[in-house]
């Protein structure tokens, strides 16, 4: 029974923090495929070390720590020329995330509403790029736009969403 409870609480805690941890990893590693691998490995490590997690303490913080270590591990496995950023940079960004976390969580929650405010064909572009994970050229092909237009549009939409989540956070 105790073991069952342990497994239950792991699944429960992970489900509750999954979106936050995913956003954390992707902020530090915006390359989607890499982030996906890191996230999966991090979850495995969390499960393996779950015995060391103290119930009642902050699971999110514990999970982010493991995810961050997993990012560093992942980095070391890759060739030097593949790396975009230094370890120092990752630490600085991770610290920044930790200190602005409550507001980042709120922004993440508002994102759905902000997406709903976009015009329909723009929602479709976001969907193709982010939900389906398509590359820019595929998005261009599927939406009947030029590659250049998709780059410009995505840039504009991200700026718009960035403004929208920021505004609603301040307003609330």
């Amino acid at each position, binding site marked *: 029974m105790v073991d069952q409870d342990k497994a239950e609480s792991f699944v429960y805690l992970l489900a509750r923090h999954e979106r936050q941890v995913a956003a954390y990893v*992707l902020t530090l590693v915006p390359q989607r495929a890499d982030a996906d691998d890191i996230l999966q490995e991090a979850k495995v490590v969390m499960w393996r070390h779950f015995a060391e997690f103290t119930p009642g303490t902050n699971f999110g913080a514990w999970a982010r720590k493991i995810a961050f270590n997993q990012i560093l591990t992942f980095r070391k496995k890759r060739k030097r020329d593949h790396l975009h*950023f230094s370890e120092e940079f990752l630490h600085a960004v991770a610290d920044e995330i930790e200190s602005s976390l409550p507001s980042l969580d709120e*922004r993440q929650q508002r994102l759905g509403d902000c997406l709903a405010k976009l015009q329909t064909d723009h929602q479709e572009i976001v969907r193709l790029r982010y939900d389906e994970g398509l590359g820019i050229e595929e998005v261009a092909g599927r939406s009947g736009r030029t590659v250049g237009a998709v780059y410009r549009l995505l840039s504009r939409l991200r700026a718009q969403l960035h403004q929208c989540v920021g505004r609603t956070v301040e307003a609330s």
Partner: protein
Amino acid sequence: MNEELEALCDKLADETLTPEEARRLEKLVLENPEMRRAYVERMHVNAALHGESVGDRPLADVVAQPQRRTRRWLLAVVPLAAAIALWFARPGSPAVATLVASKGCRWEGGALPTEPGAHLPAGRLRLTEGLATIAFASGAEVKLEAPADLELVSAMEAVLHRGSLVAHVPPRARGFQVRSGDTTLIDHGTEFGLTADGTGGSEVRVLDGLVEARHGRTGEQLRLATGEGAVFGQEKILSRGSMADSPEQLLRAMTAPTVVGDLAVSSSFGRGRATFVQRNVSATAPPVLLVKNTQQPLWMRKAFVAFDMSTLRGRPVASATLSFALAATGLGYASFVPDAEFAIYGVTDEALDGWQETGLAWDDAPANGAGPADVDAARTVRLGSFVVPQGAVGGTFGIGGPELASFLARDRDGVVTFVLVRTTRETRLTGLVHGFAGNHHPFLPPPMLRIALSK
């Protein structure tokens, strides 16, 4: 804001940043706290946009990994961990009832208020062990007997999906309703017992007072007084009688697999099998059969179930039902999947009945088709469909009808194979992955075939 930072963030998000630009971006961010903040905010929006669809992988992949220092109990825990059904009380919803007492109760899920005195909002309560007393705000009191699945609708209404309860309804709560399948019981100040078999059948026994019963399908109505009982089928009211003749519930006996004339076969019996397929994933003894309809080829999932028909021994099939116990998966958002229709196909090409449960690959699955709900039409027959309401986390779902019965009657090799697909596609890519208990679920029943034989 800084245009250079914005442009670099865009390139990073689009994955077109050059090493030189990366160094420039790094310098900006490291040297200036404001830039750092702006950078995190921008990249976090980008991350959150991705984040909803990244990480949608079976939790089974995670928990199938041994946990440190605890390998011994692993075998017991892995199926459970992957199979946990989570019950989330909707925050802010008003309490419709209070849990006043519990005896040896074990509830499914971790978020349930299980302390006596806990306020219960509208929602599903699933009791796997014990006896729980629930007081509705109206004054009606229900004793729930495990294993049971009760849905609290309002202070005056509940739905018994499975299991037994005894309801005590004081005069002030007159009109209290309990539904089960297509049957509605309206209480006129009484005490009554109700048992539901999870596939639409139920039985009521009036212990004291008067109960009005209505069958939704036929419109039949009954008034049952103290000492009377009735059995309700999916299609109609089956019987009515006096408790003096049969003091124990008839229903359990009626649906028990050992009764002559009735046959219940689970997919874990004999040559039975149950698994799901997903491209790039090979499932072994999955506790939960994952089913998903999505446009993303890698996340499509379908379930395959086989039953060993040897106990039928060629006897003629009069009618049959095939049922699955819904099991929450914790994968994906229910918000992005409306009420979901599932279709069940029977595999007619018996040469395909010998498929391997362990590590069944997408391409090897019997009569599998390329799309998320496709099957090979030449080698299958569509037997029926059922709908899982949006937000449902439990209950039994399945099909009956003449197509299923005649499919079973045509079996020649003693094994029947079914394919379960979701025909409803998610509205956004991060939609819920539905799950049904497989042969290795720790507490939910495996897929079940119930057969009534011709007399």
